[in-house]
């Protein structure tokens, strides 16, 4: 088995079996997206993940947020503006790279969609997955993510936004 392979990791089959209650498994990735203050922790599987998603706003006090905001407006949006709400200012290549890392970590099937709006918890990431994803992002982008920031990441775009902020802060 290749080193990175996940033991007994289920690859969800979009072609559903007759067993479970019929629900569409294809979920288009569309805006509008909620503002950047965070989604409350899911009531269901949250207990399995010790990362609580606080209901307060994203805490990135290691980064000068207001200063970056102004600069980021100058970044050309590389995707259609309607697709992302104003809150997702991360570069498309950051989002794509995060999606890649997440898909690999969770051993998702190719046809499974992961996009900016995807919630880690909905993708089945548990706490060990999440820390591995954070480590993967740190390595890929050359950044260091604090516990408090990591805890506030609920979606792919949360991660991408944080990465772009940290990368920019690292350069300045």
């Amino acid at each position: 088995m290749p080193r990175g392979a996940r033991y007994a990791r289920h690859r969800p089959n979009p072609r559903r079996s007759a067993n479970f209650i019929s629900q569409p498994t294809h979920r288009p990735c569309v805006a509008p997206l909620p503002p950047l203050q965070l989604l409350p922790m899911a009531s269901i599987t949250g207990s399995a993940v010790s990362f609580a998603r606080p209901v307060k706003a994203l805490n990135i006090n290691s980064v000068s947020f207001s200063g970056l905001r102004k600069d980021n407006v100058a970044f050309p949006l590389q995707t259609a503006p309607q697709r992302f709400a104003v809150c997702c200012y991360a570069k498309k290549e950051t989002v794509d790279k995060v999606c890649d890392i997440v898909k690999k970590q969770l051993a998702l099937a190719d046809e499974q969609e992961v996009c900016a709006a995807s919630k880690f918890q909905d993708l089945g990431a548990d706490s060990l997955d999440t820390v591995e994803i954070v480590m993967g992002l740190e390595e890929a982008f050359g950044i260091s993510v604090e516990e408090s920031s990591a805890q506030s990441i609920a979606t792919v775009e949360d991660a991408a936004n944080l990465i772009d902020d940290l990368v920019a802060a690292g350069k300045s």
Partner: protein
Amino acid sequence: MPLPPPQPPPTPRTPGVAGGRLFASLQLPPPLQSRSEVHVWYLLPDELNDASQLKMYMELLSPSERKTALSMNGEKLQKGAVLSRALVRTTLSRYTECKIDPRSFEFKKNKFGKPEILWQSDDVRMECPLHFNISHTSSLIACGITMGTPIGIDIEEKKRKTAKSILSLARRYFTPPEVDYLAKIPDPEAQQKEFIKLWTLKEAYVKALGRGFSGAPFNKFSIMLAAKNGIRISVDSNSSCDSLSENWQFALAELNSSHYMAACIEDDSRTSGSGNGQLSLGLKVWKTIPFVEDTLVSGTEAVKLIC
């Protein structure tokens, strides 16, 4: 164990489907005798494939729980989410002597996001507060329950492979003594198993504390496993986390031959000043298919206590 003869259904707290299996009584467990007793109920999602049964479990959920479950990505995750909530609700109902219908429970989150029961003002169990915590993997979902003490429980597949190397993960997230402990293990498989054990114990502590991952960072406290002394926790004295406490007791067991399970509850004996060491945590474990079959598995091969 066979189900007891049907008892008259408990008075429903909310309108629901009358008659039939929905009011079949859940088997009552022995009551929690003390604050150091932990009862764990677990189910195996792969055994639960009957569509009508799953539909019944689905009906126990609140509308928002149903919505959240169905927003999970893919059928298996959706099923896992439904079973998680059904397990919590049915387990809690058992410990109110089935006086409270599984569907009636309401939940809230503490300010760090830990789920708790929201008791109605007329609830009989308010004086003896139940605490619960759940954990799940794709192949096993467990719910731990105590009376009067916060609990954290975490399970993990024994053979869980990590994408990163064990030592790189440990260096990034664990304390130096824990890294040393792992580094000394020559066999990679044994090292991986010890990592998973430490991981579940640390998770269980953080979940028991209920302050979230950043409220109790993994690198601020060490867990030590020793055959004689059992499981000990020590908090980094240099850390700025004054709120981390050491008066917690742990249990670590191998469940179903496939998983490690760690449970953590507050150590009453130390806070009350009586006794100098840890009371042993009394653990009882049931394997369940709610409304169908319950099997007491503690004391059998299905539950092997490690520490």
